[in-house]
């Protein structure tokens, strides 16, 4: 068991480079093992240094068992502190997002008031049973009193009805939110009562599985890995919109919202953007076609690589795929292609013109967003081409495998930079006009220019000098870091 944990931890240090201090000899051994085991992971560029990387994030993967143990420890601690049952403590933590200090403080101030607010008891104890053989108000059958049960609110119903109630709720996926059956009674049913009443063992398993999901979802420091069929739970020190890469299934996602990582854009903004894209994509797709004519000789050009610096195969004219302008003007200071120019007189225009302008603005950002997404796909083929070419070269005794690794590193870095660049467009779309936007768009333009330069060089890697390429890599990554440092909300 301890061996397992060790492996996980050292694996984790690969992902976030923060866990092992590297002091003990045991750690050293593990590191050496790791070095020989993970040859391909050498290419992993996602090992940000702790000191000044805006994307740095500490996290570790947990198995279901570990997560359960962790939750149980927290539940037990609260039990002892408040002297309540484990089921009660579990509900309190779940309903208050595991804010233990807050729960203890509020409970000690006013125990019954706090439990009422938490829907764990009611203001007055109800008594709905009349006579020695009362009628259950759900099934309308009379039973002796000992057949009746209830939770803290005092509403009593017969055992069979509770059983049916739990069955129906669990079938609908409701577990930790099962309420009392009485009309307008919000009191929740705790785990101990559910398990005592439930007759089918299958449903008891279902209950514990679903309620475990609820517990994890309510915990700010734990996240299910969104990867397909991946059972890993990620644990982080704090709930932040940072990048997590699951070592088991390789899924990468934002820790806070669970969707694809989206720096520098924030969680709610990216959600708005993605919904908008879903709604409007038909129009956008129609407008942004896959081919364009060369602006000089008008020959039809299909884009088959990721780089947006295009060269017409006929007339050799260098132009930008996005704006069709001369590439020369995309030097660095004059790179304007990523900046949307708003109509300055828009406020005085009619509603119709404003709507057209709004669509135009959206399309501007959407086209660039979509275009970088497509470039990312196309650059995947470049990477596989590089791999094949490297193998050929090594076979022909033109250098060793290690000699050519820098090419794969360049391709991986290009991917990372372009990914961030793609996610700068939703950010810019929702930004208010002003000096901050000007600065953002300046940095975005700088990043875009360097990403395209890098892409150009990676696609022509064999005729590009290694020093030149590595220099370009450094410049592009610096631009990315600068932008994130200034704009990624931490």
């Amino acid at each position: 068991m301890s061996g397992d944990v060790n492996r996980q931890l050292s694996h984790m240090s690969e992902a976030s480079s923060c866990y092992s201090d590297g002091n003990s000899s045991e750690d050293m051994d593990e590191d050496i093992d790791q070095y020989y085991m993970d040859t391909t992971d050498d290419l992993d560029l996602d090992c940000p240094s702790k000191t000044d990387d805006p994307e740095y994030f500490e996290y570790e993967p947990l198995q279901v068992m570990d997560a359960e143990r962790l939750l149980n420890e927290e539940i037990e601690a609260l039990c002892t502190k408040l002297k309540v049952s484990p089921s009660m403590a579990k509900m309190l933590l779940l309903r208050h997002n595991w804010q233990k200090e807050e729960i203890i403080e509020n409970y000690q101030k006013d125990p019954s008031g706090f439990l009422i607010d938490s829907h764990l008891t009611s203001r007055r104890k109800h008594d709905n049973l009349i006579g020695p053989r009362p009628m259950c108000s759900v099934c309308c059958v009379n039973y002796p009193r000992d057949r009746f049960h209830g939770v803290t609110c005092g509403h009593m119903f017969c055992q069979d009805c509770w059983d049916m109630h739990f069955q129906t709720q669990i079938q609908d996926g409701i577990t930790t939110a099962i309420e009392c059956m009485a009309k307008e009674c919000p009191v929740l049913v705790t785990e101990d009562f559910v398990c005592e009443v439930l007759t089918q063992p299958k449903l008891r398993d279902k209950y514990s599985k679903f309620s475990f999901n609820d517990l994890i979802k309510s915990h700010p420091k734990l996240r299910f890995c969104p990867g397909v069929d991946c059972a890993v739970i990620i644990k982080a020190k704090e709930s932040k919109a940072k990048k997590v890469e699951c070592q088991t299934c390789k899924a990468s996602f934002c820790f806070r919202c669970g969707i694809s990582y989206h720096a520098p854009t924030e969680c709610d903004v990216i959600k708005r953007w993605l919904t908008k894209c879903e709604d409007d994509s038909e129009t956008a797709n129609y407008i942004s076609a896959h081919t364009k004519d060369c602006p000089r000789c008008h020959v039809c050009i299909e884009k088959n690589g990721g780089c947006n610096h295009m060269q017409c195969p006929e007339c050799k004219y260098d132009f930008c795929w996005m704006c069709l302008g001369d590439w020369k003007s995309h030097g660095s200071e004059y790179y304007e292609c990523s900046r949307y120019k708003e109509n300055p007189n828009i406020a005085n225009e009619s509603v119709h013109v404003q709507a057209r302008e709004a669509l135009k603005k959206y399309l501007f950002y959407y086209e660039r967003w979509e275009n970088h997404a497509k470039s990312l796909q196309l650059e995947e083929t470049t990477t596989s081409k590089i791999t094949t070419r490297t193998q050929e070269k090594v076979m022909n005794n033109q250098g060793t495998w290690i000699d050519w690794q820098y090419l794969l590193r360049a391709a991986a870095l290009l991917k990372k930079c372009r990914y961030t660049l793609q996610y700068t467009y939703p950010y810019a779309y929702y930004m208010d006009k002003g000096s901050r936007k000007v600065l953002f768009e300046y940095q975005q333009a700088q990043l875009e220019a360097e990403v395209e330069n890098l892409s150009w060089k990676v696609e022509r890697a064999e005729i590009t000098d290694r020093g030149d390429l590595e220099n370009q890599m450094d410049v592009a990554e610096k631009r990315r870091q600068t932008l994130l440092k200034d704009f990624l909300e931490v």
Partner: protein
Amino acid sequence: MANIAEQRIKREFKEVVKSDEVSAFNIKVELVNDTFTELRGEIAGPPDTAYEGGKFKLEIKIPETYPFNPPQVKFVTKIWHPNISSVTGAICLDILKDQWAAAMTLRTVLLSLQALLAAAEPDDPQDAVVAQQFKENNPIFQRTARHWTCAYAGGPKSDKELEEKVVSMKNMGFDEHKARVALSTKDWDVTRAAEYLIS
């Protein structure tokens, strides 16, 4: 049909029939078949509302898992209300969905529906067109709802102007109900309603 469900419905049926609300002609429940899976309900439009004087028929279906799941209820009588579809009669009401409790009865459902007629919740609409009119042009909404109550629920005749508009469109060759829907949707502008029907 499950034993509990049948037991409950029989019991509830008696409860409603004996209740004060029935004697005051406020609510009514009838059996449609012998198996207790389908019932017909009726509620009276609450006083001092646009539905006053109308009788609204409801289709009530009892699921196998009743009372652990809510009955399925919809309006048979056409009605102009933000939380009820003017096309299908489907109802948006919390106690018919997640706020249902097993101890609730048909009587509580019918009384809640009556309360819904008296107090619409336009921010949680079932019919977006009606909800928008409710919020943006409430006087027109009130007149339209009253007109529908008269036309479909046997409410008192009131608004000559609206009736005449429906008749004029009927004379143009449109189906009466379709004409009423179009006029109601287009705030009783005959030209726009006709355009809406033609397009």
